[in-house]
């Protein structure tokens, strides 16, 4: 028997450590370093309904103990994911977490329904992206909208649903309670903190998109705090992430209440 294996909202993972979405591509790039079969699972990069080119560069800026990124959800779209990536992923003997993001509630629901036939084990719904119909405010910054999109996606899928929460809010526990009340089987947190760097030689923001998401060890204390708050506020399992770089970090965020961890591979 495998003492590291866990049951996470009905999905069995052979161990609780999973590379975070967006840091690991579809696994192809790191396969030689980390045989995917050794990973508890993989949360693949954010997938949208249609192919997205993402933001213009520069898309990255270094920060103390971290980095800002503004990739802008570049991906080939859900059809390419299902036709090109899934056939490869299913052969790897690891759990597959599909990370999905939509511009509207309807789009999120449609994305989930398109994954119905697939071998995806768990759906991770990214609610930190802008809700076009709500003037671009992120779904994840409003309890009502976060609840609505969760409910719509849950109704559109038979797979377990994990909602990825944004830390850029006044009360992350209120958001967590709302998505739990609306059918979420789990929550994952934290997504990136909104940040900015300016090139003092030019006076202009380093990122073409001006602002970007802060990740890395710098945000780890915020992740630990929010995981601790949320796991004390909801009854569904929490997947912890945000600057988890070492095994000690993984232990610490699990002590804060996470049942599983998404880590940020450093190479």
């Amino acid at each position, binding site marked *: 028997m495998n003492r590291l294996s866990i049951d996470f909202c009905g999905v069995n993972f052979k161990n609780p450590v999973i590379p975070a979405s967006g840091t690991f591509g579809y696994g192809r*790039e790191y396969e030689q370093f980390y045989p995917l079969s050794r990973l508890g699972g993989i949360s693949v990069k954010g997938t949208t309904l249609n192919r997205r080119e993402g933001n213009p560069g520069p*898309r*990255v800026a270094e920060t103390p103990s971290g980095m800002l990124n503004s990739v802008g959800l*570049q991906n080939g779209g859900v059809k390419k994911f299902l036709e090109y990536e899934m056939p490869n992923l299913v052969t790897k003997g690891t759990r597959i977490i599909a990370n999905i993001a939509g511009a509207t509630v309807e789009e999120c629901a449609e994305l989930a329904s398109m994954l119905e036939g697939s071998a995806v084990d768990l759906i991770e719904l990214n609610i930190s992206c802008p809700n076009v119909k709500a003037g671009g405010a992120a779904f994840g910054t409003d309890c009502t909208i976060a609840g609505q999109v969760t409910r719509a996606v849950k109704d559109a899928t038979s797979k377990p649903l994990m909602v990825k929460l944004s830390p850029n809010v006044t009360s992350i526990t209120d958001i967590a309670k709302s998505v739990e009340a609306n059918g979420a089987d789990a929550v994952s947190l934290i997504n990136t903190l909104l940040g900015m760097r300016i090139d003092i030689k030019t006076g202009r923001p380093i990122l073409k998109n001006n602002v970007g998401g802060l990740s890395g060890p710098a945000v780890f204390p915020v992740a630990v705090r929010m995981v601790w708050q949320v796991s004390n506020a909801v009854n569904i399992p929490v997947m912890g992430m945000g600057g988890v770089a070492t095994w000690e970090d993984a232990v610490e965020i699990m002590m804060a209440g996470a049942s599983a961890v998404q880590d940020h591979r450093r*190479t």
Partner: protein
Amino acid sequence: MYKQGKFIIAEKKAIAKGIFDMTVLCPEIAAITQPGQFAQVAAEGFFLRRPISICEVDKNKGTIRLVFEVRGHGTDKISQLAKGALVDVIAPLGKGFTVLEKGKKAICIGGGIGTPPMVEIAKQYGENATVISGFRNASVVILQDDFKSNGNRTILCTDDGTAGIKGFVTDALAGELAKEKPDIIYACGPMMMLKNVTRIAAENGIYCEVSLEQRMACGVGACLVCVCRTVKNGEEFNSHVCKDGPVFDSKEVVFE
């Protein structure tokens, strides 16, 4: 296929104002490195590695040579590593230059700190390669002797004429093409220079490869931050310098 590890610095010296020359003993990397590929070098205390083009490879000695400029605190930290110390490197990374069969002629163009990757590719062509390199002034001229020991023909340009001829590498390129057209052109340097080299190559119907730079994170194609704009059969799309490049067919690069 790339390797990661901490390797011994076999040699390190400053070769010009703020420019360092580091030879790293890493046989498993040297054995598989192609001209034009790069290395991701860790700078202690900094979150992101620094991408540095591989200047030269010695498969017999099992070494790679990194020539880089101190541009900020991170590269400054790397430049402080001493001979005999360990440096954390991931390499070889990215798509390198296309090497034509023996006997073909090449022109290699380096602009400033874009010059180092030209050493290994020019070496492949020996006397059949003409290396045109340009620098701000004499204080930052580098690698001319290395090109000569490759057997390459060299044309040195500086903006202020303090070394070689006064003028831009593109002027020298035009002059060369007027005399004889090579089979291929390689270029690395500022975007404006690459844009002009690309135009001149196109006007002369010569295949040209350019090596690009972009702010980078993972270096292996997973994080998608090092984006550059490219075009194929009329369709524009985003490519990534670390995996699709750093070397691109110049016709496929979209210059703003």
